[in-house]
């Protein structure tokens, strides 16, 4: 047998041999425990187990700061919100199945589409990415937890409580009902009930979680990468998460400001958006879309990162044009801040700004195209393994390209002005959001399920799931293009017969039920895996990144020995895994004494020092609870109680800051 070189050199002969290796992987000749990890665990595993052991039971549940438990919770909670928002959609599709239906009233329809959009965007897509980021970013960069574990727990609790807050509004039948972008004045003086207060407060509430979560991910990436992981060895998924997090840091402020102004206008009679008193309704639109457009990429970039993880593993070669993929990711993040006005082409702005933003919007398709070609090239030059995850990645490529094409069409102002607010737009954004986020996320679930749960999923079940979702999606959303061109406006609760829209609507509703069945099926595949799936080995797919060097599921401390990273594909380079064996007696790499991990330099990943990490604590839950009380009191307009709750929250924060783990470290 010939000597194998790492797959990234990629001559045809290598690929040939490697795919033989890959095939035999399928035939379950893989290691259960990687020998290198086995050696490292044998040396320091027991000591680390004792140090990192977590409190059992309920108390352990509410005090944990373990990024893996938090990451899994994020996924479960966001998945649950996805289900609720999906049920909203199913009700809408049922209502729209035929003309002149009256299953639900127009008022309820308004709440349904607003809640569907708001929950999908804010409470499903973004946090689901955070779930993957939380779980996998520390594993992929080779560290033991997030930079600020307590803050991580806090952002989860706030996310959970704010989601419950929003759905409480829906249960009380006063959910937001002015569309997911809540334009004033509809959301202001024409909505006297609590509906829009749930919106502004709920989103401000959630923003706390997203902001601290994003900062945490960025800093973890900057300071905690395993030694040797210089910036050019960071996996594309991590780049996706980091770009997204950076974007959140800058994109949430305009949204927060807009919601603050809306709340003040509504509750304290301020005049920011009151045109009669010197305010301006278009200001809301600017602030909202200054957030809203970057948000599209906030949702899509990490999902693209998932695709960039799946494709190399199942093409058995390193990703093609890695530097361009990274540059494209970052460039997309930056350019996306300069195109928001394309959502306002029909508002009546000046021609100059229309022209400028039209051109800017066209440029943003360039980096996305670069990534597309990198994925296609990777598959082209590799040997594709059609696993469920890979099928999902390919569904993503097809769907997202279609969505991208209609997106470029909107950049052309006259076309946009024709189809704006029609079902053509609904078709477009579901192609990019469902295709660009939900499909990669499902692919990611199938890909990482062994790491998340320690169980394998059924291959056949996964393939059926991918097919059902793909078909169901296309049947639901493709006809919307035509129906939109035929003039059906979005956000109408019913329509008269005789416009030629009926058939399309019926097909779409059938598609939506296929889709729903597909999701149930997928849920069933996962449940079956949890109950009776085969136990997963460390590295079931022969993956290329560091998460596969940990246990399935990983131990509380992730890595018994922090490895030295030697290349972009550490599991394929032969030396990175070996470093876990070599360093297993080096106490700077094992850190068995207290909760500790390595801090490294931002650019080159050089070791700076050993860093202490906090242990379990109830502080995050307390802060989140007081914040929830504050928000509820604000909603109920009991200002004094809200102030008291803020004060209590401040006290807990002070306690939190007082007990910083680094207090006991020797001076730098």
């Amino acid at each position, binding site marked *: *047998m010939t000597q*194998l070189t790492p*797959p990234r050199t990629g001559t045809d002969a290598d690929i040939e041999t*490697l795919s*033989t*290796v890959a095939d*035999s992987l399928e035939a379950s*000749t*893989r290691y259960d425990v*990687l020998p290198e990890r086995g050696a490292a665990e044998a040396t320091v595993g027991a000591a680390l187990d004792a140090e990192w052991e977590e409190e059992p039971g309920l108390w352990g549940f509410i005090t944990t700061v373990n990024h893996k438990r938090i990451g899994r919770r994020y996924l479960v909670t966001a998945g649950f919100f996805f289900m609720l928002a999906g049920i909203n959609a199913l009700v809408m599709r049922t209502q729209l199945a035929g003309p002149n239906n009256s299953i639900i009233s127009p008022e309820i329809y308004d709440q349904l589409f607003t809640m569907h959009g708001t929950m999908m965007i804010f409470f499903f897509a973004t946090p689901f990415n955070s779930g993957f980021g939380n779980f996998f970013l520390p594993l992929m960069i080779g560290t033991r937890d997030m*930079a*600020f574990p307590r803050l991580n727990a806090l952002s989860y609790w706030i996310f959970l409580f704010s989601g419950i807050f929003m759905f409480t509004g829906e249960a009380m039948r006063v959910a937001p009902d002015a569309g997911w972008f809540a334009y004033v004045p509809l959301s202001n003086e024409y909505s006297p009930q609590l509906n829009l207060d749930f919106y502004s407060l709920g989103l401000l509430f959630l923003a706390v979680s997203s902001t601290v979560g994003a*900062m945490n991910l*960025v*800093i973890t990436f900057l*300071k905690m990468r395993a030694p040797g992981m210089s910036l050019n060895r960071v996996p594309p998924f991590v780049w996706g998460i980091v770009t997204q997090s950076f974007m959140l*840091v*800058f994109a949430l*402020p*305009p949204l927060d*400001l807009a919601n*603050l102004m809306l709340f*003040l206008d509504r509750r*304290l*009679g*301020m*005049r*920011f958006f*009151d045109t009669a*008193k*010197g*305010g*301006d309704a278009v*200001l809301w639109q600017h*602030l909202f879309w200054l957030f809203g457009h970057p948000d599209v990429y906030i949702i899509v970039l990490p999902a693209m990162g998932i695709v960039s993880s799946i494709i190399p593993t199942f093409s058995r070669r390193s990703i093609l044009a890695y530097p361009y993929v990274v540059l494209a990711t970052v460039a997309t993040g930056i350019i996306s801040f300069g195109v928001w006005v394309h959502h306002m082409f029909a508002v009546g702005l000046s021609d100059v700004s229309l022209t400028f933003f039209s051109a800017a919007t066209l440029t943003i398709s360039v980096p996305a195209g670069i990534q597309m070609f990198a994925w296609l090239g990777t598959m082209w030059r590799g040997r594709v393994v059609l696993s469920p995850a890979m099928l999902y990645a390919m569904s993503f490529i097809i769907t997202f390209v279609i969505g991208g094409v209609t997106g470029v069409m909107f950049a052309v102002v006259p076309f946009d002005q024709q189809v704006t607010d029609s079902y053509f737009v609904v078709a477009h954004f579901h192609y990019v959001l469902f295709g660009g986020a939900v499909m990669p996320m499902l692919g990611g679930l199938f890909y990482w399920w062994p790491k998340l749960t320690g169980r394998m999923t059924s291959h056949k079940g996964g393939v059926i799931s991918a097919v059902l979702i793909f078909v169901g999606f296309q049947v639901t959303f493709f006809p919307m293009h035509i129906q939109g061109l035929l003039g059906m406006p979005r956000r109408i609760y019913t329509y008269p017969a005789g416009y030629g829209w009926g058939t399309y609507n019926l097909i779409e509703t059938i598609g939506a039920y296929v889709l729903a069945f597909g999701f149930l099926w997928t849920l069933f595949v996962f449940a079956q895996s949890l109950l009776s799936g085969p136990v997963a080995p460390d590295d079931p797919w*022969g993956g290329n990144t560091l998460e596969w060097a940990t246990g399935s599921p990983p131990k509380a401390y992730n890595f018994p020995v922090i490895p030295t990273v030697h290349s972009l594909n550490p*599991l394929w*380079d*032969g*030396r990175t*895994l*070996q470093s876990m*064996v*070599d360093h297993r*007696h*080096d*106490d700077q790499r094992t850190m068995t004494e207290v909760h*500790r991990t390595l*801090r490294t330099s*931002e650019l080159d990943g050089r070791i*700076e*020092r050993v*860093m202490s990490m906090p242990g379990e604590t109830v502080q995050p839950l307390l802060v989140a609870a007081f914040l929830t009380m504050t928000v509820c009191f604000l909603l109920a307009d009991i200002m004094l109680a809200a102030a008291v709750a803020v004060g209590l929250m401040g006290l807990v924060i*002070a306690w939190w*800051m*007082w007990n910083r783990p*680094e207090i006991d470290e*020797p*001076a*730098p």
Partner: protein
Amino acid sequence: MTDVNAALRRTRIGDRETAQGETERAVRRGAWPVAETPAGRTTGWWGMLLFICTEAAMFACFIASYYYLRFSTDGSWPPVSDKLPHRIVPGIGTGVLVLSCLPMFAAVRTSRKSRAVTFPLLVLVTLAGTTFVVLQAVDYMQEYPSSTPSKDAYGSLLFTLTGLHAFHVGIGVLMMLLVLGGQLARGFKKPQAGATRVMAMYWYFLAVLAVAIYITVYLTPYIM
């Protein structure tokens, strides 16, 4: 084809056997800072930087909104029903906050060497911050009946923009008290230098912001 496992092992872990000899050597380094490398930025430093970024983005949007509304208003600014803002009192407040950056800077410089000097310097900074908040409240009493938060967009902007900033200064004062408390309770031996350094970043940010807001809210109505 029979020896796939061996092939796999070679793909994954390369020269495993050859490196074996060195692996048994145990290394005890004491696991603290590595002598050769510089101390580097802490996670706390980066945390504060990103926090400042997100706050700066919000205030930038707010100030931009101020000008947006100002220039989409025809006629005079402030509107005829309002009087021009008072420049003096908020000017003093802003000046005090900006000047307090000097003791803050000195405190950072001394925090590693002479902690007895750091403490009074930080007390001075805290007092300056408090003064700023008080003067802002005094200004509201001057502006009040002529401009109110709900009378027109001008009033909403004036009170909310400055109020949000003053609120942040208030938070800065509370954080400062926490740093001071830490120094008192833990003695001056334990390193509070990191906390002081991070606190200073925030303080400088608040001062820069104060100037930008002062120019926007209190000066531009006179010149535009």
